[in-house]
């Protein structure tokens, strides 16, 4: 596994997203991942999600983090860039069908069958 992972959150940051993010941070750290780019794709007000993410961000004391904020409409462009750059991508979302759509978009960009 690469020591640098892209964690993508699509839609609202709910309790389930928070939980998944905690689990991912712990799992990635134990696999030796040193840096995480956390990308939030949302249509809500700027930084609104920080209230929800604060606990996860503060609990992390080891891994380097860059948190980027994107509009929801940018998902496909950013995903394409990441796949082209050979980045390892993990998608987290509590919203269906959004999550499935983004996951299949990612799979098709990687040339994988749905």
């Amino acid at each position, binding site marked *: 596994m690469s020591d640098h992972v892209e964690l993508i959150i699509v839609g609202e940051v709910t309790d389930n997203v928070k939980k998944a993010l905690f689990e991912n941070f712990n799992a990635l750290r134990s696999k030796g991942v040193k840096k995480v780019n956390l990308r939030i794709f949302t249509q809500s007000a700027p930084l609104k999600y920080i209230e929800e993410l604060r606990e996860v*961000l*503060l609990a992390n004391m080891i891994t*380097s983090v860059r948190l980027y904020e994107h509009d929801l409409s940018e998902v496909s462009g950013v995903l394409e860039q990441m796949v082209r750059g050979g980045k390892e991508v993990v998608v987290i979302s509590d919203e269906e069908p959004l999550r499935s759509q983004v996951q299949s978009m990612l799979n098709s960009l990687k040339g994988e069958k749905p």
Partner: protein
Amino acid sequence: MFDVVLTTDRTMMTNHHGKEFLGFMATGPALGLPEPIWLWVCAPKMKTDDVGRVWQAPYGMRKVEAVLMDAGFKVATIDPDHLDRHVKHAKVLLLSHHDYFALCPPSSEWWSITRKEPVNAKSFRRLMERPSLREAKRRGLKIIAGGPAAWQWLWKVDKWVEWGVDTVVDGEAEKVVVDLVSKALNDEPLPRYVYVGVDEVPKLEEIPTIKHASINGLIEVTRGCPRNCRFCSVTLRPLRHYTFDMIEQELKVNVSEGITEGIIHSEDVLLYGSRSVEPEPDAVIKLHKLVKSYYKKISWSHASLSAIKRAEEKYKLVTKVGEIICDDNQDYWGVEVGIETGSVKLAKKIMPAKSAPYPVEMWPQVVEDSFAIMHENHIIPAATLILGLPEETEDDVMKTAELLDRLRPYRSLIVPMFFVPMGYFKTHDWFTRVKIRDEHVEVMKRCLDHALYWANDIMSKFYLKGPSRAPLRWMLRLFLAYVKWRTRNIDKKIEEWKARRDSP
């Protein structure tokens, strides 16, 4: 003109009249004095050159400035009074602060007790709300905020958005700031938040030396701490001791810019050069000889009480260092030390290695012995206590109160601080309300009593002696008289406060 400007508000961009401890007044609201006079006492204006570059700046900002200068940016550290003309042209503004929103102790306690916003937060707010900055922001100025209080932005998202801060950087910035500033200058997307993890913490050889004078000649000699206390974030970073060459370079920079006195900064000055909790006497002595060969007066930022006891009892090191420090130019030196608690039970839970190499069961004795050593050696400590720690019981707090009684004979100031979650505790939510209990009030009362007992002695005989300090001394005497007057009926006031607290 500069593309990149570093600044902070007046309560940070000041040398506190060369008396670092006066800076603590900036953590409170103006009490008994008009705010401009209060600010003059604790945060006088900094001298600048014609374009507004400061004579002295906070050490951490000087480090970031040095990294950016080495990378070839047009960068300067500008006094807040001169910021308006620079933000007209600058493309990136870098901010730093010890306490942006007065959320750290003792600011948070002042705020809680007096119900008045401390001057540091007010001063920072005034900086961020000035029209020139708002205008520059509309034109596309990028703002990056960092420093030791960067974490506070996570609790103040409304201000983060309202003031247009683009990025918050939490952690040692040396290895990340060049990339961020380059992105900002090239209009590339910036991350909203950066946490500097273990892999991005600079190695010793990646830490630059400062290029211009630091406030009160402060020079760092060590980063990190081996004690692993659970409430502290410093302990999470690797331990790095500066080489004598690096230290001397920074001393030369400060002296060449007119600094004659300075502070040796480390979490534990007596552990300089050590890879454990056992002092390395040769390194400590060499360090002090070196610093004293450049500065007329020196003090320490921090030392641990256990290292003070160990250093003196095993190596007579405090006495030896005192012989280097004290001369015709100075007859005492100051240091900040952490008592944290008088309870062995609590110490075992939160700071089991703080007393090392002594067993944690000896902690109250370690504290008392090191206070006696400091008193005999003319070291004046500003000590901190932590109240409201997780799992703290009434009995723990009363043990602290008892320890305070034992410390009465020793010249010192002891400041109670309410727990702020950092280090392993940093996800704890303390904003819901600091629960001040009766036994906390008892400890605070004893600290105040201790301070009033020693304050005049410290001020007149040591800290502010001599005719040149007379106005400042007079002002502080006035303040002390005010505090004594306000607290003359303290027991009655405490009872009234308890009644208010307990009323539904």
